Protein backbone atom coordinates (compact mmCIF):
# COMPACT_ATOMS: atom_id res chain seq x y z
CA UNK A 1 0.00 0.00 0.00
CA UNK A 2 1.29 3.45 -0.84
CA UNK A 3 1.46 6.18 1.76
CA UNK A 4 -1.27 8.75 1.25
CA UNK A 5 -0.60 12.42 0.76
CA UNK A 6 -3.91 13.16 2.41
CA UNK A 7 -5.61 11.01 4.96
CA UNK A 8 -8.95 12.03 6.42
CA UNK A 9 -10.76 9.88 8.95
CA UNK A 10 -14.19 10.42 10.45
CA UNK A 11 -14.26 14.12 9.69
CA UNK A 12 -17.29 15.86 11.19
CA UNK A 13 -18.04 19.56 10.81
CA UNK A 14 -21.09 21.40 12.09
CA UNK A 15 -22.16 25.00 12.11
CA UNK A 16 -24.53 26.17 14.82
CA UNK A 17 -27.34 23.61 14.80
CA UNK A 18 -26.47 22.46 11.29
CA UNK A 19 -24.44 19.36 10.51
CA UNK A 20 -22.58 19.63 7.22
CA UNK A 21 -19.93 16.91 7.16
CA UNK A 22 -20.99 13.75 8.82
CA UNK A 23 -18.03 11.39 8.93
CA UNK A 24 -15.82 11.78 5.88
CA UNK A 25 -13.05 9.29 5.07
CA UNK A 26 -10.81 10.30 2.21
CA UNK A 27 -7.37 9.29 1.00
CA UNK A 28 -5.48 10.98 -1.77
CA UNK A 29 -2.31 9.40 -3.09
CA UNK A 30 0.78 11.52 -3.83
CA UNK A 31 0.39 13.13 -7.22
CA UNK A 32 -3.23 12.06 -7.53
CA UNK A 33 -5.72 14.54 -8.96
CA UNK A 34 -9.09 14.27 -7.24
CA UNK A 35 -12.15 16.29 -8.17
CA UNK A 36 -14.81 16.88 -5.54
CA UNK A 37 -18.34 17.23 -6.86
CA UNK A 38 -21.56 17.85 -5.02
CA UNK A 39 -24.70 19.90 -5.04
CA UNK A 40 -24.60 23.49 -3.89
CA UNK A 41 -24.57 23.55 -0.11
CA UNK A 42 -23.42 19.93 0.15
CA UNK A 43 -20.32 20.96 2.08
CA UNK A 44 -17.56 20.96 -0.56
CA UNK A 45 -16.12 24.25 0.58
CA UNK A 46 -16.52 23.20 4.19
CA UNK A 47 -14.39 20.11 3.55
CA UNK A 48 -11.77 22.08 1.68
CA UNK A 49 -11.60 24.76 4.34
CA UNK A 50 -11.21 22.08 6.99
CA UNK A 51 -8.22 20.70 5.07
CA UNK A 52 -6.79 24.20 4.64
CA UNK A 53 -7.29 24.79 8.37
CA UNK A 54 -9.18 28.04 7.89
CA UNK A 55 -12.57 26.82 9.15
CA UNK A 56 -12.39 28.54 12.51
CA UNK A 57 -16.12 29.14 12.61
CA UNK A 58 -16.99 25.42 12.32
CA UNK A 59 -17.01 22.87 15.11
CA UNK A 60 -16.24 19.22 14.74
CA UNK A 61 -13.99 16.26 15.15
CA UNK A 62 -12.00 13.81 13.10
CA UNK A 63 -8.49 13.20 12.02
CA UNK A 64 -6.69 14.94 9.18
CA UNK A 65 -3.19 14.15 7.99
CA UNK A 66 -1.68 16.50 5.46
CA UNK A 67 1.69 17.15 3.92
CA UNK A 68 3.63 20.04 5.39
CA UNK A 69 3.71 21.99 2.12
CA UNK A 70 0.26 22.76 0.82
CA UNK A 71 -1.19 25.57 -1.25
CA UNK A 72 -4.71 26.87 -1.56
CA UNK A 73 -6.37 28.50 -4.57
CA UNK A 74 -9.61 30.31 -3.99
CA UNK A 75 -12.46 31.13 -6.34
CA UNK A 76 -11.29 34.74 -6.41
CA UNK A 77 -7.62 35.28 -7.13
CA UNK A 78 -7.26 36.93 -3.74
CA UNK A 79 -4.25 39.04 -4.61
CA UNK A 80 -3.19 41.81 -2.27
CA UNK A 81 -4.00 44.96 -4.26
CA UNK A 82 -1.10 46.92 -2.75
CA UNK A 83 1.55 44.46 -3.87
CA UNK A 84 2.95 44.07 -7.32
CA UNK A 85 2.41 40.76 -9.07
CA UNK A 86 5.78 39.25 -8.21
CA UNK A 87 5.46 40.24 -4.55
CA UNK A 88 2.04 38.65 -4.47
CA UNK A 89 3.49 35.43 -5.84
CA UNK A 90 6.23 35.48 -3.21
CA UNK A 91 3.98 36.43 -0.28
CA UNK A 92 5.53 34.77 2.77
CA UNK A 93 8.35 33.13 0.81
CA UNK A 94 11.62 34.44 2.22
CA UNK A 95 15.00 34.79 0.54
CA UNK A 96 16.62 36.44 -2.43
CA UNK A 97 16.78 33.32 -4.57
CA UNK A 98 13.00 33.08 -4.18
CA UNK A 99 12.64 35.97 -6.61
CA UNK A 100 14.15 33.83 -9.32
CA UNK A 101 11.69 31.06 -8.58
CA UNK A 102 8.86 33.59 -8.52
CA UNK A 103 9.80 34.84 -11.95
CA UNK A 104 9.93 31.36 -13.40
CA UNK A 105 6.58 30.50 -11.80
CA UNK A 106 5.09 33.56 -13.50
CA UNK A 107 6.69 32.50 -16.77
CA UNK A 108 5.14 29.05 -16.35
CA UNK A 109 1.66 30.53 -16.17
CA UNK A 110 2.40 32.72 -19.21
CA UNK A 111 2.89 36.00 -17.36
CA UNK A 112 6.58 36.62 -17.91
CA UNK A 113 7.26 40.34 -17.99
CA UNK A 114 4.26 41.27 -15.84
CA UNK A 115 6.18 41.02 -12.56
CA UNK A 116 5.84 44.71 -11.75
CA UNK A 117 2.17 45.11 -12.71
CA UNK A 118 -0.43 45.94 -10.07
CA UNK A 119 -3.15 43.31 -9.66
CA UNK A 120 -5.87 45.68 -10.90
CA UNK A 121 -4.01 46.02 -14.18
CA UNK A 122 -4.58 42.33 -14.96
CA UNK A 123 -7.64 40.63 -16.41
CA UNK A 124 -9.61 38.18 -14.29
CA UNK A 125 -7.98 35.20 -15.95
CA UNK A 126 -4.52 36.69 -15.57
CA UNK A 127 -5.16 37.35 -11.89
CA UNK A 128 -6.18 33.75 -11.41
CA UNK A 129 -2.97 32.68 -13.15
CA UNK A 130 -1.01 34.78 -10.68
CA UNK A 131 -2.82 32.90 -7.91
CA UNK A 132 -1.76 29.67 -9.59
CA UNK A 133 1.85 30.86 -9.69
CA UNK A 134 1.60 31.84 -6.02
CA UNK A 135 0.44 28.30 -5.23
CA UNK A 136 3.14 26.61 -7.33
CA UNK A 137 6.11 28.64 -6.12
CA UNK A 138 5.70 26.95 -2.74
CA UNK A 139 6.29 23.56 -4.42
CA UNK A 140 3.26 22.06 -2.68
CA UNK A 141 2.74 18.38 -2.05
CA UNK A 142 -0.97 19.14 -1.91
CA UNK A 143 -2.93 21.71 -3.88
CA UNK A 144 -6.40 22.62 -2.63
CA UNK A 145 -8.59 24.55 -5.04
CA UNK A 146 -12.17 25.69 -4.44
CA UNK A 147 -13.86 26.37 -7.79
CA UNK A 148 -10.78 28.22 -9.02
CA UNK A 149 -12.26 28.78 -12.46
CA UNK A 150 -15.83 29.50 -11.39
CA UNK A 151 -15.61 33.21 -12.12
CA UNK A 152 -13.95 32.90 -15.53
CA UNK A 153 -15.54 32.89 -18.96
CA UNK A 154 -15.78 29.63 -20.86
CA UNK A 155 -12.82 30.20 -23.15
CA UNK A 156 -10.49 31.33 -20.40
CA UNK A 157 -11.65 28.36 -18.36
CA UNK A 158 -10.61 25.93 -21.08
CA UNK A 159 -7.19 27.54 -21.22
CA UNK A 160 -6.88 27.37 -17.44
CA UNK A 161 -7.79 23.66 -17.53
CA UNK A 162 -4.95 22.93 -19.89
CA UNK A 163 -2.58 25.01 -17.81
CA UNK A 164 -3.56 23.38 -14.55
CA UNK A 165 -3.30 19.90 -16.00
CA UNK A 166 0.11 20.58 -17.48
CA UNK A 167 1.44 22.17 -14.31
CA UNK A 168 0.10 19.43 -12.11
CA UNK A 169 1.84 16.91 -14.39
CA UNK A 170 5.12 18.82 -14.09
CA UNK A 171 5.05 19.54 -10.36
CA UNK A 172 3.05 16.47 -9.41
CA UNK A 173 1.28 17.60 -6.26
CA UNK A 174 -1.75 15.78 -4.97
CA UNK A 175 -4.73 17.92 -5.98
CA UNK A 176 -8.18 18.30 -4.49
CA UNK A 177 -10.28 20.38 -6.87
CA UNK A 178 -13.75 21.47 -5.82
CA UNK A 179 -15.97 22.06 -8.79
CA UNK A 180 -19.59 21.92 -9.83
CA UNK A 181 -18.67 21.37 -13.44
CA UNK A 182 -18.95 17.68 -14.33
CA UNK A 183 -16.99 18.05 -17.55
CA UNK A 184 -14.21 19.87 -15.78
CA UNK A 185 -14.00 17.02 -13.29
CA UNK A 186 -13.87 14.33 -16.01
CA UNK A 187 -11.35 16.27 -18.02
CA UNK A 188 -8.90 16.99 -15.24
CA UNK A 189 -9.18 14.39 -12.53
CA UNK A 190 -7.79 10.91 -11.98
CA UNK A 191 -10.65 10.28 -9.60
CA UNK A 192 -13.97 11.91 -8.82
CA UNK A 193 -15.57 11.88 -5.39
CA UNK A 194 -19.01 13.16 -4.67
CA UNK A 195 -20.38 14.67 -1.48
CA UNK A 196 -23.98 14.06 -0.60
CA UNK A 197 -25.77 14.41 2.69
CA UNK A 198 -22.57 14.89 4.64
CA UNK A 199 -20.85 11.80 3.31
CA UNK A 200 -18.79 10.77 0.30
CA UNK A 201 -21.52 9.19 -1.80
CA UNK A 202 -19.42 8.14 -4.78
CA UNK A 203 -15.80 7.48 -5.56
CA UNK A 204 -15.14 6.91 -9.26
CA UNK A 205 -11.84 6.43 -11.03
CA UNK A 206 -11.63 8.36 -14.30
CA UNK A 207 -10.06 5.74 -16.54
CA UNK A 208 -10.21 7.29 -19.98
CA UNK A 209 -8.80 5.48 -22.99
CA UNK A 210 -6.13 7.59 -24.69
CA UNK A 211 -8.23 8.59 -27.69
CA UNK A 212 -10.83 7.62 -30.24
CA UNK A 213 -14.37 6.39 -29.98
CA UNK A 214 -13.73 4.41 -26.81
CA UNK A 215 -12.66 7.61 -25.06
CA UNK A 216 -15.79 9.47 -26.11
CA UNK A 217 -18.00 6.64 -25.05
CA UNK A 218 -16.37 6.44 -21.64
CA UNK A 219 -16.72 10.20 -21.20
CA UNK A 220 -20.40 10.06 -22.12
CA UNK A 221 -20.91 7.18 -19.73
CA UNK A 222 -19.21 8.94 -16.83
CA UNK A 223 -21.09 12.12 -17.53
CA UNK A 224 -24.41 10.34 -17.55
CA UNK A 225 -23.56 8.59 -14.31
CA UNK A 226 -22.47 11.77 -12.56
CA UNK A 227 -25.54 13.62 -13.75
CA UNK A 228 -27.70 10.87 -12.35
CA UNK A 229 -25.84 10.93 -9.03
CA UNK A 230 -26.21 14.68 -8.80
CA UNK A 231 -29.85 14.38 -9.76
CA UNK A 232 -29.75 16.86 -12.63
CA UNK A 233 -30.81 16.75 -16.26
CA UNK A 234 -27.97 16.00 -18.62
CA UNK A 235 -26.72 18.76 -20.88
CA UNK A 236 -27.06 18.33 -24.68
CA UNK A 237 -24.75 15.64 -26.02
CA UNK A 238 -22.59 17.88 -28.19
CA UNK A 239 -21.63 20.04 -25.23
CA UNK A 240 -17.92 19.63 -24.50
CA UNK A 241 -17.80 16.66 -26.90
CA UNK A 242 -14.08 16.69 -27.39
CA UNK A 243 -12.22 17.19 -24.16
CA UNK A 244 -8.79 17.57 -25.71
CA UNK A 245 -7.37 20.82 -24.34
CA UNK A 246 -5.69 23.39 -26.60
CA UNK A 247 -1.93 23.34 -26.96
CA UNK A 248 -0.33 24.87 -23.87
CA UNK A 249 2.16 26.72 -26.07
CA UNK A 250 -0.66 28.98 -27.19
CA UNK A 251 -1.33 30.07 -23.62
CA UNK A 252 1.54 32.47 -23.20
CA UNK A 253 0.01 34.95 -25.56
CA UNK A 254 -3.59 34.21 -24.73
CA UNK A 255 -5.90 37.00 -23.58
Amino acid at each position, binding site marked *: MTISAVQVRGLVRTFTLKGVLNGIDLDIAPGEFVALLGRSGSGKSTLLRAL*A*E*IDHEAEGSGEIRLPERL*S*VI*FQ*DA*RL*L*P*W*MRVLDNVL*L*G*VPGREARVRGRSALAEVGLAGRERA*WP*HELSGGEQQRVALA*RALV*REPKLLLADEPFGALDALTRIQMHALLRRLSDVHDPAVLLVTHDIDEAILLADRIVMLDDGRLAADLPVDLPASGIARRERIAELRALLHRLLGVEEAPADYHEDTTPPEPAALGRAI
Partner: protein
Amino acid sequence: MNAYSDLRVEPITVQKPRSVPKQRLSPGKPARYGILLGPALLLLYWTVLSVTGWLDPRILPAPWTAITTAIELIREGRLQENLAISTWRAMTGLGFGVIVGVTLALLSGLSLLGGYVIDGLVQIKRGIPILALIPFMILWLGIGETMKITLIATAVFFPVYINTHNALRAIDLRHVELAETVRLTRWQFLRSVVVPGSLPGFLTGLRFGVTASWLALVVVEQLNATSGIGYMVTLARNYAQTDVMLVGLVLYALLGFGSDAIVKQLERGLLSWRKTLGR
Protein backbone atom coordinates in the same frame (compact mmCIF):
# COMPACT_ATOMS: atom_id res chain seq x y z
CA MET B 1 -11.93 36.46 -53.90
CA ASN B 2 -14.49 35.37 -51.40
CA ALA B 3 -18.21 35.08 -51.53
CA TYR B 4 -18.75 38.64 -50.37
CA SER B 5 -16.77 40.27 -53.13
CA ASP B 6 -19.77 40.88 -55.39
CA LEU B 7 -21.83 42.50 -52.65
CA ARG B 8 -22.27 46.20 -53.05
CA VAL B 9 -20.85 47.81 -50.01
CA GLU B 10 -22.50 50.98 -48.78
CA PRO B 11 -19.99 53.66 -47.94
CA ILE B 12 -19.62 54.03 -44.21
CA THR B 13 -18.68 57.30 -42.63
CA VAL B 14 -15.72 56.52 -40.46
CA GLN B 15 -15.81 58.25 -37.13
CA LYS B 16 -12.79 60.18 -36.01
CA PRO B 17 -10.73 57.89 -33.82
CA ARG B 18 -10.95 58.78 -30.17
CA SER B 19 -7.81 58.21 -28.17
CA VAL B 20 -9.35 57.49 -24.78
CA PRO B 21 -13.06 56.92 -24.27
CA LYS B 22 -14.54 59.10 -21.56
CA GLN B 23 -15.75 57.44 -18.40
CA ARG B 24 -19.38 58.42 -18.26
CA LEU B 25 -20.01 58.24 -14.52
CA SER B 26 -16.81 59.86 -13.39
CA PRO B 27 -16.26 63.60 -13.65
CA GLY B 28 -13.34 63.03 -16.02
CA LYS B 29 -9.62 63.41 -15.76
CA PRO B 30 -8.70 66.26 -13.39
CA ALA B 31 -6.48 69.05 -14.71
CA ARG B 32 -3.16 69.52 -12.99
CA TYR B 33 -3.84 72.64 -10.93
CA GLY B 34 -7.62 72.58 -11.31
CA ILE B 35 -8.00 72.75 -7.54
CA LEU B 36 -6.80 76.38 -7.67
CA LEU B 37 -9.74 77.55 -9.77
CA GLY B 38 -12.12 78.20 -6.87
CA PRO B 39 -9.62 80.24 -4.82
CA ALA B 40 -8.66 82.18 -7.95
CA LEU B 41 -12.30 83.11 -8.59
CA LEU B 42 -12.74 84.24 -4.98
CA LEU B 43 -9.61 86.40 -5.28
CA LEU B 44 -10.93 87.93 -8.47
CA TYR B 45 -14.30 88.74 -6.85
CA TRP B 46 -12.56 90.34 -3.88
CA THR B 47 -10.29 92.40 -6.17
CA VAL B 48 -13.24 93.63 -8.19
CA LEU B 49 -15.12 94.66 -5.06
CA SER B 50 -12.07 96.53 -3.75
CA VAL B 51 -11.27 98.28 -7.02
CA THR B 52 -14.80 99.47 -7.49
CA GLY B 53 -14.85 100.71 -3.92
CA TRP B 54 -17.86 98.64 -2.89
CA LEU B 55 -15.78 97.13 -0.15
CA ASP B 56 -14.87 99.56 2.63
CA PRO B 57 -11.16 99.04 3.46
CA ARG B 58 -12.02 99.44 7.16
CA ILE B 59 -14.19 96.33 6.89
CA LEU B 60 -11.88 94.33 4.64
CA PRO B 61 -8.77 95.82 3.03
CA ALA B 62 -7.94 95.18 -0.61
CA PRO B 63 -5.82 92.17 -1.60
CA TRP B 64 -2.84 94.34 -2.55
CA THR B 65 -2.97 96.02 0.88
CA ALA B 66 -2.56 92.57 2.37
CA ILE B 67 0.48 92.02 0.16
CA THR B 68 2.16 95.34 0.98
CA THR B 69 1.46 94.88 4.68
CA ALA B 70 2.87 91.37 4.48
CA ILE B 71 6.03 92.67 2.82
CA GLU B 72 6.37 95.26 5.55
CA LEU B 73 5.85 92.65 8.27
CA ILE B 74 8.50 90.48 6.64
CA ARG B 75 10.92 93.39 6.55
CA GLU B 76 10.36 93.97 10.26
CA GLY B 77 10.88 90.26 10.83
CA ARG B 78 7.58 89.86 12.72
CA LEU B 79 5.90 87.67 10.15
CA GLN B 80 8.60 85.00 9.91
CA GLU B 81 9.04 84.87 13.67
CA ASN B 82 5.34 84.43 14.44
CA LEU B 83 4.82 82.09 11.55
CA ALA B 84 7.68 79.87 12.68
CA ILE B 85 6.31 79.66 16.20
CA SER B 86 2.78 78.86 15.03
CA THR B 87 4.03 76.23 12.61
CA TRP B 88 6.19 74.69 15.30
CA ARG B 89 3.20 74.48 17.68
CA ALA B 90 0.94 72.93 15.10
CA MET B 91 3.54 70.42 13.91
CA THR B 92 4.55 69.35 17.41
CA GLY B 93 0.93 68.89 18.40
CA LEU B 94 0.26 67.04 15.16
CA GLY B 95 3.25 64.76 15.73
CA PHE B 96 2.20 63.81 19.25
CA GLY B 97 -1.43 63.42 18.25
CA VAL B 98 -0.59 61.13 15.34
CA ILE B 99 1.83 58.98 17.33
CA VAL B 100 -0.58 58.50 20.21
CA GLY B 101 -3.56 58.04 17.88
CA VAL B 102 -1.89 55.37 15.77
CA THR B 103 -0.42 53.55 18.76
CA LEU B 104 -3.73 53.36 20.59
CA ALA B 105 -5.57 52.42 17.39
CA LEU B 106 -3.15 49.53 16.86
CA LEU B 107 -3.48 48.42 20.48
CA SER B 108 -7.27 48.50 20.43
CA GLY B 109 -7.64 47.24 16.88
CA LEU B 110 -5.35 44.25 17.19
CA SER B 111 -5.97 43.01 20.70
CA LEU B 112 -9.30 42.23 22.32
CA LEU B 113 -8.36 43.58 25.74
CA GLY B 114 -6.96 46.76 24.19
CA GLY B 115 -10.25 47.16 22.35
CA TYR B 116 -12.33 46.87 25.51
CA VAL B 117 -10.21 49.32 27.49
CA ILE B 118 -9.17 51.94 24.96
CA ASP B 119 -12.08 52.05 22.58
CA GLY B 120 -14.61 52.37 25.39
CA LEU B 121 -12.75 55.33 26.83
CA VAL B 122 -12.34 57.00 23.47
CA GLN B 123 -16.02 56.66 22.67
CA ILE B 124 -16.98 58.34 25.94
CA LYS B 125 -14.43 61.11 25.52
CA ARG B 126 -15.59 61.63 21.99
CA GLY B 127 -18.83 63.13 23.26
CA ILE B 128 -16.99 66.04 24.89
CA PRO B 129 -15.97 68.86 22.53
CA ILE B 130 -12.25 69.59 22.70
CA LEU B 131 -12.87 73.23 23.51
CA ALA B 132 -14.75 72.25 26.66
CA LEU B 133 -11.47 70.83 27.94
CA ILE B 134 -9.68 74.16 27.84
CA PRO B 135 -10.51 75.24 31.43
CA PHE B 136 -9.24 71.93 32.78
CA MET B 137 -6.16 72.00 30.63
CA ILE B 138 -5.32 75.46 31.89
CA LEU B 139 -5.91 74.33 35.47
CA TRP B 140 -3.66 71.27 35.05
CA LEU B 141 -1.01 72.50 32.68
CA GLY B 142 -0.98 76.28 33.05
CA ILE B 143 -1.16 78.63 30.11
CA GLY B 144 2.27 77.91 28.64
CA GLU B 145 3.32 75.94 25.59
CA THR B 146 2.60 72.57 27.26
CA MET B 147 -1.09 73.33 27.45
CA LYS B 148 -1.20 74.62 23.88
CA ILE B 149 0.56 71.59 22.42
CA THR B 150 -1.45 69.16 24.51
CA LEU B 151 -4.69 70.68 23.31
CA ILE B 152 -3.60 70.55 19.66
CA ALA B 153 -2.43 66.97 20.09
CA THR B 154 -5.77 66.03 21.64
CA ALA B 155 -7.64 67.58 18.74
CA VAL B 156 -5.47 65.65 16.28
CA PHE B 157 -5.71 62.41 18.19
CA PHE B 158 -9.40 61.78 17.63
CA PRO B 159 -9.70 61.77 13.85
CA VAL B 160 -6.44 59.83 13.56
CA TYR B 161 -7.48 57.26 16.12
CA ILE B 162 -11.02 56.79 14.86
CA ASN B 163 -10.14 56.45 11.19
CA THR B 164 -7.17 54.19 11.77
CA HIS B 165 -9.15 52.05 14.17
CA ASN B 166 -12.03 51.69 11.70
CA ALA B 167 -9.62 50.75 8.94
CA LEU B 168 -8.04 48.09 11.12
CA ARG B 169 -11.44 46.68 11.96
CA ALA B 170 -12.36 46.61 8.29
CA ILE B 171 -9.36 44.56 7.16
CA ASP B 172 -10.66 42.10 4.57
CA LEU B 173 -11.25 38.70 6.14
CA ARG B 174 -10.36 37.06 2.86
CA HIS B 175 -6.90 38.56 3.09
CA VAL B 176 -6.57 37.20 6.60
CA GLU B 177 -7.46 33.74 5.29
CA LEU B 178 -4.90 34.09 2.55
CA ALA B 179 -2.28 35.07 5.10
CA GLU B 180 -3.11 31.93 7.06
CA THR B 181 -2.85 29.63 4.07
CA VAL B 182 0.54 31.00 3.05
CA ARG B 183 1.59 30.76 6.70
CA LEU B 184 2.63 34.33 7.31
CA THR B 185 4.21 35.03 10.67
CA ARG B 186 2.48 37.59 12.86
CA TRP B 187 5.09 40.17 11.92
CA GLN B 188 4.80 39.45 8.18
CA PHE B 189 1.03 39.65 8.49
CA LEU B 190 1.26 43.08 10.10
CA ARG B 191 3.69 44.33 7.51
CA SER B 192 2.10 42.98 4.34
CA VAL B 193 -1.61 42.95 5.18
CA VAL B 194 -2.52 45.09 8.19
CA VAL B 195 -0.39 48.17 7.57
CA PRO B 196 -1.03 48.58 3.83
CA GLY B 197 -4.67 47.59 4.28
CA SER B 198 -5.32 50.26 6.88
CA LEU B 199 -3.14 52.92 5.29
CA PRO B 200 -6.00 54.58 3.35
CA GLY B 201 -7.99 54.94 6.56
CA PHE B 202 -5.00 56.31 8.42
CA LEU B 203 -4.34 58.89 5.71
CA THR B 204 -7.95 60.05 5.82
CA GLY B 205 -7.53 60.43 9.55
CA LEU B 206 -4.29 62.31 9.02
CA ARG B 207 -6.01 64.79 6.74
CA PHE B 208 -8.72 65.48 9.29
CA GLY B 209 -5.99 65.61 11.92
CA VAL B 210 -4.05 68.27 10.05
CA THR B 211 -7.16 70.41 9.71
CA ALA B 212 -7.91 69.87 13.40
CA SER B 213 -4.40 70.96 14.32
CA TRP B 214 -4.79 74.36 12.62
CA LEU B 215 -8.20 74.81 14.11
CA ALA B 216 -6.92 74.09 17.61
CA LEU B 217 -3.94 76.33 16.94
CA VAL B 218 -6.17 79.30 16.20
CA VAL B 219 -8.08 78.73 19.42
CA VAL B 220 -5.06 78.31 21.70
CA GLU B 221 -3.33 81.32 20.21
CA GLN B 222 -6.25 83.50 21.21
CA LEU B 223 -5.62 82.48 24.81
CA ASN B 224 -2.98 84.65 26.34
CA ALA B 225 -0.35 84.06 23.69
CA THR B 226 2.76 86.21 23.56
CA SER B 227 3.84 84.97 20.16
CA GLY B 228 2.47 83.35 17.02
CA ILE B 229 0.10 84.41 14.27
CA GLY B 230 -2.80 84.46 16.70
CA TYR B 231 -0.92 86.88 18.92
CA MET B 232 -0.13 89.08 15.94
CA VAL B 233 -3.81 89.18 15.02
CA THR B 234 -4.98 89.88 18.57
CA LEU B 235 -2.50 92.71 18.87
CA ALA B 236 -3.62 94.15 15.54
CA ARG B 237 -7.25 93.98 16.60
CA ASN B 238 -6.47 96.13 19.65
CA TYR B 239 -5.12 98.81 17.31
CA ALA B 240 -7.80 98.24 14.65
CA GLN B 241 -5.14 97.31 12.05
CA THR B 242 -7.42 95.42 9.72
CA ASP B 243 -4.62 94.89 7.22
CA VAL B 244 -2.47 92.98 9.73
CA MET B 245 -5.50 91.00 10.83
CA LEU B 246 -6.08 90.15 7.21
CA VAL B 247 -2.50 89.01 6.73
CA GLY B 248 -2.95 86.72 9.72
CA LEU B 249 -6.11 85.29 8.21
CA VAL B 250 -4.45 84.72 4.86
CA LEU B 251 -1.52 83.04 6.60
CA TYR B 252 -3.84 80.62 8.39
CA ALA B 253 -5.55 79.89 5.11
CA LEU B 254 -2.27 79.28 3.29
CA LEU B 255 -0.99 77.05 6.06
CA GLY B 256 -4.16 74.98 6.09
CA PHE B 257 -4.28 74.76 2.33
CA GLY B 258 -0.60 73.93 2.03
CA SER B 259 -0.52 71.25 4.68
CA ASP B 260 -3.61 69.61 3.23
CA ALA B 261 -1.89 69.60 -0.16
CA ILE B 262 1.15 67.92 1.39
CA VAL B 263 -0.98 65.16 2.90
CA LYS B 264 -2.79 64.71 -0.41
CA GLN B 265 0.54 64.35 -2.17
CA LEU B 266 1.58 61.82 0.45
CA GLU B 267 -1.63 59.91 -0.20
CA ARG B 268 -1.00 59.89 -3.91
CA GLY B 269 2.49 58.52 -3.41
CA LEU B 270 1.57 55.87 -0.85
CA LEU B 271 -1.65 54.69 -2.46
CA SER B 272 -0.47 54.52 -6.04
CA TRP B 273 -1.77 50.95 -6.23
CA ARG B 274 -5.34 52.14 -5.93
CA LYS B 275 -7.67 52.56 -8.83
CA THR B 276 -10.11 55.33 -7.99
CA LEU B 277 -12.15 57.92 -9.78
CA GLY B 278 -10.52 61.11 -8.65
CA ARG B 279 -7.00 60.70 -9.95
